[in-house]
């Protein structure tokens, strides 16, 4: 297999960065079906394959349901796999998606996030990731094209860890990251091999022809509950493991993003914004500018959304005067965003009572711009000063 050096600084899109990472991880099987805004990942992988850079079996499936089925079969047979989809593709994949989680198949999947259709759109959102958030996959959110590449590599080390063995979604916004061109450093094959080498000594049970075994058998009651109990325990272990992997990545590649969360100027902050995904990147310069004007604001960016980093969040919000959560998703049944609800749950569990305000913005490609973010900080500051504040504010509508 040709090992031409593909490393170096490149100016590439988020989807291309994803493809480079997959190429470097050298999966055994890629099975995927195109959908906007993920399609260019597959185009790029096809190029790499034609150039002889990937010893990968490409299965050009007829739909996303088969994509996950193919990955599942390959994964439980011991193969490293990759797939990618968005929104309606994920909906079509749902059946297999749940199967993969229940069978603890360490599949890595790029979830190039789109909003939900009806009304019709193909634009950026987070609702597709939210739709499946509790189906048993690890979900980690990126902020930049570089982080997409780095997270895909880290995802294999996390998923295939014998103490984890859970499938992983690397989630990033369609358009705002998938088609975003940025400077990205692509590592070399040897470096990535080295980073993934700890997995070599880790055995996992795989389906094979020598040992007769049942797979995904019919199970009920106590034994089924034991499966779910163990799944929850694996999620719990994955939090610590993700922290370790981020440290190891920073040591080897020199790039650090924090761990389950990234804290930006939170230590001496009076008020905090909590966000998830690409628009955190827009918030950082806004926080800087507001600090220059005397507002002591900070930002928590949630990277690992599943499992939810409740301990880290509880620690980071401790002692703050108010919290504003900007959700790029909606929970209509609760009239709030999803991240808002989960942070409220953290407060309930840890017995804190910091005033909170929820914001919703950026659905279906709506621009979470500097103005909106500044307004969110101002409102949160007002809340910290006892101003009467609504529980939920739609930044684009009000």
């Amino acid at each position, binding site marked *: 297999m040709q090992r031409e050096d593909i490393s170096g600084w490149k*100016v590439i899109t988020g989807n291309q960065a994803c493809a480079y990472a997959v190429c470097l991880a050298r999966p055994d099987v890629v099975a995927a079906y195109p959908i906007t805004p993920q399609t260019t990942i597959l185009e790029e992988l096809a190029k790499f394959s034609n150039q002889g850079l990937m010893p990968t079996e490409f299965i050009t499936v007829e739909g996303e349901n088969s994509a996950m089925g193919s990955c599942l079969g390959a994964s439980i047979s011991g193969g490293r796999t990759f797939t990618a989809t968005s929104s309606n593709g994920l909906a079509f994949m749902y059946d297999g998606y749940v199967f993969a989680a229940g069978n603890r198949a360490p599949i890595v999947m790029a979830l190039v996030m789109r909003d939900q259709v009806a009304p019709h759109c193909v634009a950026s959102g987070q609702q597709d990731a939210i739709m499946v958030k509790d189906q048993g996959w690890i979900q980690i959110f990126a902020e930049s094209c570089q982080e997409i590449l780095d997270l895909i590599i880290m995802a294999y080390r996390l998923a295939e860890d014998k103490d984890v063995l859970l499938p992983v979604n690397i989630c990033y*916004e369609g358009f705002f990251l998938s088609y*975003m*061109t940025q*400077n990205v450093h692509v590592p070399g094959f040897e470096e990535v091999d080295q980073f993934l080498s700890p997995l070599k000594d880790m055995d996992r049970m795989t389906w094979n022809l020598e040992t007769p075994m049942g797979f995904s058998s019919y199970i009920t009651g106590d034994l089924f509950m034991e499966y779910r109990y163990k799944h929850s325990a694996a999620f719990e272990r994955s939090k610590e493991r993700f922290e370790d992997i981020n440290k190891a990545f920073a040591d080897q590649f020199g790039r650090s993003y924090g761990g389950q969360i990234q804290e930006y100027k939170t230590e001496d902050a009076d008020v905090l914004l909590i966000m998830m995904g690409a*628009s955190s*990147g827009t918030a950082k310069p806004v926080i800087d500018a507001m600090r220059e004007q005397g507002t002591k604001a900070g930002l928590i960016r949630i990277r690992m959304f599943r499992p939810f980093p409740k301990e880290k969040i509880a620690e980071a919000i401790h002692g703050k005067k108010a919290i504003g959560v900007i959700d790029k998703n909606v929970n209509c049944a609760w009239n709030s965003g999803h991240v808002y609800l989960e942070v409220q749950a953290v407060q309930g569990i840890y017995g804190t009572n910091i005033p909170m305000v929820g914001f919703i913005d950026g659905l279906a490609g709506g621009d979470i711009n*500097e103005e909106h973010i500044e307004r969110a900080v101002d409102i949160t500051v007002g809340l910290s000063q006892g101003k009467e504040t609504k529980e939920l504010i739609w930044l684009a509508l009000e």
Partner: protein
Amino acid sequence: MKEIKLWGRGGQGAVIAAEMLAAALATDGKWVAAFPSFGPERRGAPVDAFIRFNDKPITTVSEIKAPDCLMVLDRVRAVSTPENPEIKPDGILIMNVAMDVEPINYQGISVLGRVDGTKIGMEEIGRDISNSVMLGAFAKTTGWIGVEPLLECLDEHFAGKLLKVNQQCLKRGFEETVVTRHQGDV
């Protein structure tokens, strides 16, 4: 940090133009962030592209409202560009327009670059694709990047005959763009 906005229509290479411009700026040592915004993915539908560049990494992913430079690749969008376009005070405007028409007196800009991108595209490529021409116009009007790095970036996207004609377009865009400086239009 400088912000550039491109206005085009689907099928004219606005997105590729933004990618090439970003790549050229990066080879010039800049940190870049460029992305498109469009609705239906079809020929003729409006396409906006945003490019930011700076001497340090850019984390912002919001759309650009009032850029430092607005470049209009498409003749139809040029015709519907308002006389006071949304642009930073004393910003730069670059238009694909017919050159035998009296230039419009745009308000609030400091520099205007005009070139007949459509005509050059038709002559060199045989189609109304002005993106390479307008990259040349960009280099001439703003002076923020030279023609050489732009020509190098064409290699990544084109080969053979297409590469040659796009190189021609870029050079002609640079040579034939007329740049006028406006004093105190605000």
